[in-house]
């Protein structure tokens, strides 16, 4: 055929020009309608899929999609209305079963219908923006069954009834529940939420409000928390079994709010069973449960933390201000350590090592330890006790553990410089009396202090150790160069470098002739090898071992202080000596002499001297004799008193004064350092910077800092700015 001549004749490929028989559509539709009926009546087996598919295909092709679609809607709707009626007719518990069954049927039918109408689904429906078949089937189910007036509310109340029954302990058909709930989910999240979840949550809230009220009236805190925990887990389990997983967080929020958040304060402060009682009784399980439950609600953990903190501060405060407990410093510090251990345990076992709780614990300790300004002294005494005897026989690792615990208390101290002063005093006494249990332990603690506070803190302490060692070497050299002295009394000298050791006023007394000759020999030996140095004998710090024979021939070795030795040696040349004679001969200062005589004449078991009159105190008119009747079951008798003790009031005042005096140059040095680098700085910032710089040693008092600034102004180190009186300027 030529295209040019016959213009009207056009071949259009792929288009069937089939004559449209108006009745064609009717006929085809009724076939399909019939098929739908059969499908709903469970008679699908007799149908030919291929035939039905083709029919549907043709209808769409021939532009009868509209008729097909609307027919589908009508037919399905009619069926669903029927189904609805049969569900409504079901009695009691069978209602849900019937609903479930019919739903399954509907789904199967829908599947088949969709398969048949797939062409329409793929072409007509997208073009016309109509709802696809499957979704249509669900929507129709929703509108005609679920939202039918007779079914909607009945369905909901049945579901809620079942949940309630399960909550009260009955066993329900979970499979059925799951299917029904899944049906609602399949119908769309808004159906699930509106037709089930929202009312479910409301009802649950009421239920748990009631539960919690009931429990809180009759349970103690621990039991209540157990019950709450149980309920919470129950709800979580319910969700996994038959609810939408997204409901978990919503229902747990309800339980948390009703059972925990609403009663938080009442639980925590419950008399005899609340948080404080749990802490006191180390109820780890209950505390752990409380922690896990409270962490779920807003302010839960902070509530626990606050109550714990104020409780700790309270007992801590009582501990450090209770005069009874303060009588024995070592006991006192042990109590502090025990308390810390207790709470460390609680935090690790029950509060899962929560850092914020650790911080609260630390700040509480820091608060109350510093309430008592003798804490630094007491901690040093505790360490002294341990290093003197407490650590005897303890393994190396255990020693480290104890020292680390002490360091932890040390860190809490604000006045670390006070601790340093006491530690130095006590260390000196330990070293000089040779009474330290373990050199390694001493060294280990020094290293820890150095790590914590820097080299300056410990350099003098280390100097003390060095002196001890050097003295040993010096003694060896002395005796090596004086072999003739090996027969006489043995002299042991510790040469102390003045700056390193705690300052003592040097008092000399009159040594017995044998000793003073020996000491002189040592002095010339030492100065021979160390020119330019000065030696002064600290007779108030020495000890002596002397052999004594008493009236009945009993022999003892007496370990005494140097002062005591001087006094005793006098009795080699006299049977009776008056107080005044002793004082004159020895030259020992009065208060020391009295103490010295008292320890030898008035203490049972150590009374190597006899006093007339036999009073407790030493009077200036007393007379002294050797106690010939002295007995002791030990050969070696210790009479000297060089042990570190809690300071008396006046001593404490003196130490504190010295500490205050020492702080002044440190504050000034800090001010000068800061001003030198900053040149100009305002008042508040200087205070802040100085405090920060010094806080590793002590807490600087702003008033004291101000005084030092004024002193520096007076000495022309600083000046005030002329225009802004808040500013200070560094004068080079």
């Amino acid at each position, binding site marked *: 055929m030529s295209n040019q001549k016959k213009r009207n004749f056009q071949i259009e490929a792929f288009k069937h020009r089939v004559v449209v028989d108006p009745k064609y559509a009717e006929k085809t539709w009724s076939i399909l309608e019939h098929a739908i009926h059969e499908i709903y009546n469970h008679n699908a087996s007799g149908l030919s899929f291929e035939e039905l598919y083709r029919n549907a295909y043709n209808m769409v092709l021939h532009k009868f999609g509209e008729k097909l679609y609307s027919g589908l809607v009508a037919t399905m709707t009619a069926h669903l209305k029927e189904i609805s009626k049969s569900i409504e007719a079901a009695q009691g518990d069978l209602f849900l079963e019937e609903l479930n069954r019919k739903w399954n049927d509907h789904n199967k039918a829908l599947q088949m219908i969709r398969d048949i109408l797939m062409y329409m689904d793929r072409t007509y429906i997208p073009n016309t923006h109509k709802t696809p078949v499957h979704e249509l089937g669900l929507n129709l189910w929703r509108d005609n069954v679920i939202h039918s007036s007779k079914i909607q509310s009945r369905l909901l109340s049945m579901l809620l009834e079942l949940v309630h029954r399960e909550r009260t302990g009955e066993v329900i058909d979970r499979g059925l529940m799951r299917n029904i709930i899944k049906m609602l989910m399949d119908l769309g999240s808004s159906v699930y939420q509106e037709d089930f979840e929202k009312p479910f949550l409301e009802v649950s809230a009421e239920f748990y409000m009631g539960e919690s009220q009931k429990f809180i009236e009759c349970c103690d805190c621990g039991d209540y928390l157990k019950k709450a925990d149980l309920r919470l887990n129950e709800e979580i389990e319910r969700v996994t079994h038959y609810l939408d997983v997204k409901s978990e967080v919503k229902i747990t929020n309800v339980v948390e709010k009703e059972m925990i958040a609403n009663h938080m304060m009442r639980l925590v402060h419950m008399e005899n069973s609340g948080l404080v009682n749990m802490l006191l009784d180390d109820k780890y399980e209950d505390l752990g449960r409380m922690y896990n439950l409270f962490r779920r609600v807003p302010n839960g953990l902070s509530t626990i933390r606050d109550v714990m903190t104020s409780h700790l501060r309270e007992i801590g405060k009582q501990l450090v201000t209770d005069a009874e407990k303060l009588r024995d410093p070592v006991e006192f510090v042990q109590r502090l350590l025990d308390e810390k251990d207790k709470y460390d345990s609680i935090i690790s076992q029950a509060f899962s090592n929560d850092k914020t709780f650790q911080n609260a614990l630390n700040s509480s300790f820091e608060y109350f330890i510093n309430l008592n300004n003798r804490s630094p002294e007491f901690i040093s005494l505790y360490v002294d006790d341990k290093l003197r005897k407490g650590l005897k026989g303890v393994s190396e690792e255990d020693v480290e553990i104890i020292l680390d615990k002490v360091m932890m208390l040390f860190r809490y101290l604000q006045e670390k410089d006070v601790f340093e002063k006491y530690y130095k005093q006590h260390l000196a006494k330990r070293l000089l009396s040779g009474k330290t249990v373990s050199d390694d332990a001493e060294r280990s603690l020094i290293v820890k202090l150095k790590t914590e506070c820097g080299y300056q803190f410990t350099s003098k302490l280390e100097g003390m150790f060095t002196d001890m060692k050097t003295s040993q070497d010096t003694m060896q050299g002395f005796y090596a160069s004086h072999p003739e002295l090996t027969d006489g009394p043995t002299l042991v000298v510790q040469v102390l470098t003045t700056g390193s050791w705690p300052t003592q006023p040097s008092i000399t007394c009159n040594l017995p002739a044998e000793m003073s000759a020996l000491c002189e020999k040592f002095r010339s030996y030492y100065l021979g090898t160390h020119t330019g140095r000065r030696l002064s004998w600290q007779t108030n710090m020495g000890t002596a071992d002397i052999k004594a024979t008493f009236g009945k021939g009993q022999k003892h070795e007496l370990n005494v202080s140097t002062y005591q030795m001087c006094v005793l040696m006098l009795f080699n040349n006299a049977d009776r000596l008056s107080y005044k004679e002793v004082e004159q001969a020895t030259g020992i200062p009065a208060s020391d002499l009295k103490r010295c005589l008292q320890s030898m004449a008035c203490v049972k078991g150590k009374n190597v001297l006899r006093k007339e009159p036999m009073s407790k105190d030493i009077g200036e008119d007393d007379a002294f004799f050797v106690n010939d009747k002295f007995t002791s079951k030990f050969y070696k008798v210790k009479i000297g008193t060089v042990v570190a003790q809690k300071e008396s009031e006046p001593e404490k005042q003196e130490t504190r004064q010295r500490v205050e005096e020492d702080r002044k140059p440190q504050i000034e040095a800090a001010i000068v350092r800061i001003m030198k680098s900053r040149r100009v700085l*305002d*008042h*508040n910032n200087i205070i802040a910077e100085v405090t920060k710089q010094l806080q590793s040693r002590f807490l600087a008092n702003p008033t004291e800092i*101000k005084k030092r600034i004024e002193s520096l*102004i*007076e000495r022309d180190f600083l000046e*005030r700015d002329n225009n802004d*009186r808040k500013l*200070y300027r560094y004068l080079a």
Partner: protein
Amino acid sequence: MERIDNLFYSFANRSSGMIDPEGIETLCSDMEVDHTDVRILMLAWKMKAEKQGYFTLEEWRRGLKALRVDTVSKLRKALPELEKEVRRPSNFVDFYSYSFCYCLTEEKQKSIDIESICQLLDLVLGSQFRAQVDYFIEYLKIQSDYKVINLDQWMGFFRFCNEISFPDLSNYDPDLAWPLVLDNFVEWMQAKQS
């Protein structure tokens, strides 16, 4: 000029060549002014006199030339004008700090004892800040923290009088860089008032 010099020598001590305390006393009685009067201090300021109780020729010349006087009676008549000049705010600060330094009699002396300070305060600030001066003097006499007052504290008090509302002290902020003695004074005042 010659008259000024002659006037000087009429009061000066023959051997030292300066007007000494005795000479000043004579001058004062000639002017019919008490020698403890504040106007004498003002005169010293005008002269920029260095040493308390003494006027050198140079200082004398300086002062009288500035005041444009050459006789005792003219000098006396010039005093009210001098006082007005000193009390002008622009000059008073200078006068105030001068009066402190003028009282430092020893070399290297930096502070003045409490007793003298109380007198000086009364003299210099009494007319202007009667209440503050009286209360502060009372405080200084009973406190024991400070035995002397230095220039910084002296100047601080003047600032205090000018800036701080008295006696309520409501705008006093102890966190600012006021000298410590004033912090303590305010504390004492507040304790008294409650």
